[in-house]
């Protein structure tokens, strides 16, 4: 049987993959997808700890995380559509108007 450590290590690997994706990709949609990978890694941690503690709270927090992720995806994609209309590009380096 896999132990709690196995699930936590898998979650850490997935979270690192998501972080690397946010840093190295130059595409707004792929960056949002990497954020989803990170959220899923955290969900896996919550479920594994909830199982280890014998509590249902882990799954309830996963429910809330998914709801917030849905809201974040909706607003984020709306912003992406707006940005794409302005510049005809999805490269985040194109959107530096707020940089000083």
């Amino acid at each position, binding site marked *: *049987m*896999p*132990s*709690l*450590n*196995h*699930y*936590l*290590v*898998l979650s*850490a690997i*997935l979270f690192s*993959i*998501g972080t*690397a*994706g946010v840093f*190295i*990709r*130059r*595409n707004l*949609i*792929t960056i*949002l*997808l*990497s954020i*989803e*990978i990170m959220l*899923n890694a955290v*969900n*896996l941690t919550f*479920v594994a700890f909830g*199982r*280890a503690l*014998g509590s*249902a*709270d*882990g*799954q*309830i927090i996963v*429910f*809330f995380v*998914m*709801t*917030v*992720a*849905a*809201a*974040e*995806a*909706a*607003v984020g*994609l*709306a*912003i*992406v*559509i*707006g940005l794409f*209309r302005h510049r005809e590009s*999805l*490269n985040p380096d194109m959107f530096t108007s707020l940089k000083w």
Partner: protein
Amino acid sequence: MIAFYALAAIAVVSSLLVIAQRNPIYSVLLLIASFGALSGLYVMLDAPFAAVIQIIVYAGAIMVLFLFVVMLLNAPHEETEHDLRLHPLMRAGPMGFGVVLAVVLVVELGLALGAGRASAFSAASTSSVRDIGRTLFTDYAFAFEVTSVLILVAMVGAVVLARRGSR
């Protein structure tokens, strides 16, 4: 154990391919495969509720939203020519820092996997959907209602942001 390693391998490999793809459509489809593997892991963790909403909400709703936007924007490919020269993370400082962080992560993961007392899960199962629903509508009732307001605000915000026009 074999099932765990198989599902974990699917999740990690498809996540790696998500950030390795040039075409965002392939990224979205591979991420759905990763979510399917995670759903199988939730089943192994005795969490059927989490497994089902992972498929329904994530793979069914959020990823379809992503796919819809990718197709709406006609999926522009990432330009790679100027990336390698101008990428701010390609300088020596950030590269060295990233290497240090990666080494620390690998060492810590090795220590975690080699830890002596691997705590196996207890046999008692407490995660029936009935318990989850009862807790959700008693202890977490306020958070649940606030979540509905959040969804409403996100919907209004998405409509306002994506509206063509008056601004």
